[in-house]
């Protein structure tokens, strides 16, 4: 009689182990997805501030604008990347400065006079779009990961290991409308 129970218990344990290993695998993939997304976001943000610095040193703007552009781009690059809140604020400032410097289409059309400036602005425009996309994808990955990490089984068996609770990136990433209007 007792061998019956052994079979049931063993198969139950095997099933639970299989489920846990699959969930751990899922979670691992989700953590990797977040890493990839935050790396991609980092790349685009760095590119945006670098392009802003280029724009500042291009001689297209008056001295006052140049100083503001360079200062906000420097601030965004100098911030401690491990602190998402501080970084979000610095990047939002840069977004606001770009919006002020490129306020309307008439102004942008004037800047587009030379081919170099045109290429620069096009690149900045596509980078701003990519910043926005990357942040959305990053935050969506965080959401998907949090959803799995809230599961009881994941918490009880500590399937997430020592990986810290993931954080979304909050910032104003609206591209300057005069640039992306197409």
């Amino acid at each position, binding site marked *: 009689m007792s061998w019956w129970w052994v079979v049931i218990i063993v198969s139950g344990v095997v099933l639970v182990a299989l489920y846990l*290993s*699959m969930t751990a*695998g*899922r979670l691992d*993939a*989700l953590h990797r*997805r977040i890493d*990839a*997304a935050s*790396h*991609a976001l980092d*790349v*685009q943000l760095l590119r945006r501030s670098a392009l802003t610095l280029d724009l500042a040193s291009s001689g297209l703007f008056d001295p006052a604008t140049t100083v503001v552009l360079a200062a906000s781009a420097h601030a965004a690059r100098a911030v401690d990347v491990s602190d998402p809140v501080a970084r979000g604020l610095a990047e939002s400032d840069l977004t606001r400065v770009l919006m002020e410097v490129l306020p309307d289409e008439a102004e942008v059309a004037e800047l587009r006079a030379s081919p170099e400036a045109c290429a620069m602005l096009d690149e900045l425009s*596509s980078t701003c*779009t*990519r910043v926005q*996309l*990357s942040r*959305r*994808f990053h*935050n*969506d*990955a965080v*959401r*998907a990961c949090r*959803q*799995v990490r809230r599961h009881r089984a994941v918490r009880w068996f500590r399937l997430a290991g020592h990986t810290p609770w993931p954080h979304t990136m909050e910032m104003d990433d609206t591209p300057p409308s005069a640039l992306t209007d*197409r």
Partner: protein
Amino acid sequence: MKIGIVCPYSWDSPGGVQAHVRDQAETLIAGGHDVSVLTPVEDPTHLPPYAVDGGRPRAVPYNGSVARLTMGVKATARVRRWIREGDFDVLHVHEPLAPSLGVLACWAARGPIVATVHSSIERSRALATGYYVAQTALEKINAIIAVSEHARRTIVDHLGADAVLIPNGVRVDTFREAAPLRRWAGPSVMFLGRMDEPRKGLPILLTAFAEVRQRIPKVTLILVGPGDPDEVLAGVPAAVREGIVCLGRVSEDEKARALASADLYVAPNTGGESFGIVLLEAMAAGAPVVASDLEAFDRVLDNGRAGRLFPVGDASALAHAIIDLIDDPAERAQLRDIGRQRAELYDWPRVARDILDVYASVTAGQGPVTEDLRGQIVGRWAGRRREAP
């Protein structure tokens, strides 16, 4: 950039998703990218050079009708081999929740994956039958694109996931340069779509047309699309029947030419449209559009600025709109210009640029797509077995 695209439905059967995949692939290739499309196909000899045979589709009852899908051990093995040998920078899966090659590709791949969701009905079905399965596939997707606001909303509401809206594309060049098919004796009004599909709304147009014909006797109605004309036109009086020409099913080229020869294009649909690509095709071909005020059409026609809208199902309002426009060549010319400009916004090269922005956002700093061997016991076993020559 090396791009692998997965099409879920049979390449040889006509459909919006297949057309989208074809146009996307050809536009990206024209832009200098290296594209491979994996698709189910009945007859592999008709595949274009960039497409790879993903296996024969099987008729499976799915989502309320019989769909031609590809799945099973053999299909899994093909998908795995394609991913292994493709060495793609990004994998682009269409309709990731249809039980076909798309979902197999999501399971079999590891690395940057982008997915495009076309329809909204699939979702609730997929969720009802296998929430867990759907989630495990979706979790691996780095970026979801929705082709319409409608499709986007269902993803957000039902799955809680985010999606970027990139609308369907139109091959503006093909339609703009199409030579008119033929000159009609009087003013011509065109209908495009399955004649016997109630949601396409042909009966409403027929009622309206009878009224138009009383006012303007020389007007011709051109019907383009599959369906039995005798059956559809059975209840139409002989006097009205005289003014109707049926062209039946036509090729893509002929469709463009037929649209270019029409004075008006009418879309009397009563529902079931999530985007309205035909409207854009008509506009690109230079046919002014009269359409029912479905949400999707309203969006494409820019709240009625790029075409005339009438209340869904209202035949007499439609008749008035047609008569108004036929009597007013200046208005039609204006609509034609606005429509052409509007269609430019949805031109494929422009849409492809948006898609490439998404690729760039998921591939930045990432390696190529590789085969995912984790937890895929069946797939791994299938891969080894079918591989061995």
